[in-house]
């Protein structure tokens, strides 16, 4: 272990473990037998410490930096940038482009997240049955989720190219005229398909959850005369509900922050964001344009902070609305 000398992760990791729990954990020595709950408290901080330390160093510092930037006209390179208070925030709230981009992102989340979850869960249920060659099917279905974004972008771009693409080739076979898939208004559907294509991600997590649904419960339900659908609805879904909640929350976050529209652009570079069809010009793309193309780090940081707060609120609402619906064997929030 490289404990001494140059900065190394190991030492930092070790210091990390040392610092945070110190507040909660007293030296072991000759102490009176600690109560159950103190032990639990101390243990909690011991378990949480790696994240807490990493969070302070690798997240809080950058966030505060970005917050500071959002109050300036900083563009990274020009000599005369200055502090402008909340002007960036005022500008972004007054700019219709912000709202249009936000609306598109919201609509996209509302469609892509439920569809992905339904598709992923469906696949998981399908593949969870006793099948021949199950491992093969599982791998093939998961395959798209591991295709790198660059490759996925490439595949869908060439698939849906108006002139040379396979999609229009199929349409032509049926005597239908070719569509400009990668332009408005169809580009949004191509984007949706690209995202659904990676439903394998939802599938494997649901699958992990399904493995944990005891078979006895299914059998019990069957003996009670419940059909497949009812069993699914009243046994599988409730038991999967923590996993589904997880999928919803992370799905919303991922969909709002997706950079897939960029990779579907003719030039999949950070500058290529500027030639994205209007219907795919979502909030994150707007941030990219301001950040990379216009170099407005201050303004883009403000946009990102607003996005962050918005997602926070939306997630809070999701948790609020699902609190009565999600079923845990052990409620992690319950006081013991």
């Amino acid at each position, binding site marked *: 272990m490289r404990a001494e000398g140059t900065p190394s992760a190991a030492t930092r990791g070790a210091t990390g473990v040392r610092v945070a729990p110190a507040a909660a954990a007293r030296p072991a020595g000759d102490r009176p037998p600690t109560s159950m709950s103190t032990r639990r408290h101390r243990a909690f901080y011991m378990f949480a410490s790696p994240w807490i330390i990493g969070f302070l160093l690798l997240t809080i510092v950058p966030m505060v930096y970005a917050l500071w930037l959002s109050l300036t006209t900083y563009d990274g390179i020009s000599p005369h940038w200055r502090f402008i208070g909340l002007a960036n925030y005022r500008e972004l709230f007054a700019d219709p482009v912000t709202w249009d981009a936000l609306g598109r992102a919201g609509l996209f989340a509302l469609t892509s997240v439920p569809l992905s979850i339904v598709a992923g869960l469906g696949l998981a249920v399908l593949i969870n049955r006793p099948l021949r060659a199950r491992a093969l099917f599982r791998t093939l279905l998961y395959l798209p989720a591991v295709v790198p974004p660059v490759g996925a972008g*490439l595949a869908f771009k060439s698939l849906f190219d108006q002139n040379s693409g396979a999609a229009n080739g199929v349409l032509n076979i049926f005597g239908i005229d070719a569509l400009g898939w990668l332009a408005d208004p169809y580009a949004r559907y191509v984007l949706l398909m690209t995202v659904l294509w990676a439903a394998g991600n939802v599938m494997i997590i649901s699958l992990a959850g399904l*493995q944990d649904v005891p078979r006895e419960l299914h059998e019990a339900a069957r003996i009670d005369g419940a059909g497949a659908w009812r069993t699914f609805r009243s046994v599988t879904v409730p038991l999967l509900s923590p996993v589904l909640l997880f999928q919803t929350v992370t799905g919303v976050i991922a969909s709002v922050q997706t950079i897939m529209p960029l990779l579907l652009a003719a030039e999949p570079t950070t500058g290529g964001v500027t030639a994205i069809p209007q219907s795919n010009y979502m909030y994150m793309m707007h941030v990219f344009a301001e950040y990379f193309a216009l170099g407005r780090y201050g303004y883009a*940081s403000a946009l990102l902070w607003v996005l962050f707060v918005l997602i926070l609120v939306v997630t809070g609402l999701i948790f609020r609305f699902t609190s009565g619906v999600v079923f845990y064997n052990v409620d992690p929030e319950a006081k013991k």
Partner: protein
Amino acid sequence: MRTGRLVLYTVLVVVTGLFLGPFGWLVLTGLKTSAETAAAPVHWLPADFQWHNFADAFHLIDFLGYARNSLIIAFLYATLVTLSSAWVGYGFARLDAPGKKTLFGVLLGSMMLPQMITLLPTYLIFARLGMVDTYWPWVLWGLAAAPYLVFLFRQFFAGLPRELEEAAIVDGCGYATIFWRIFLPQSWPVLSASFVIAFTWTWGDYIAPQLLLSTDRSTLAVAVMSTYVTSAGTPVTHLQAAASVMYVVPILLIFLVAQRGFVAGMSTSGLK
């Protein structure tokens, strides 16, 4: 019953076909000439299969070198982050302490943070630590646990029955022992899922390596994205397609191995 199975397999084959379609198209694109990728109306199959495209794509860049870099980073990060996230996730699922709820809120909140917000400062931090152009940032990220995976583990651990740990607590075992001896062995499905997810992230990420690594140390994702160009800098689509196909192979192998973990989960379910 028999027709039921027939329907099931038919559905499965059709769905799998749909999912494989775009990938198949990518493979076909990788087998065409540059001009053929732009043919209209569409050329379904290459006139001559350009198998050498794959060899060209392999030799045009130091494919193995970049793959090795990607493997090191992805393996390192996925291993560390899976362990650290399970560790943290256990705390959030099975223990409590004052401030836990707030911390959990913060954890979820940090997941919502757009990665981009940290781009510039992250570089500046690692530059100050002298870690630019090394793989240490991935070690640090790995040790720091990933909120997404912490959440995943927390949800999983929360779903295990309480009886699991009660006996151990009565026996006087420490929580670390409980975590290590009782919970981790129960968690193969999530552990392997987490490993695969983390591995895939790192394997597919090009923003962080692009920002922090020099060309030679960079990853396959960055190389595939930016190296298949003509002397004028314009992209060479068919080679890029071939490279993207080859780029997927290691991930598939990892998945093939790791997915046994999901199956193993069958027998580890707690309610027996």
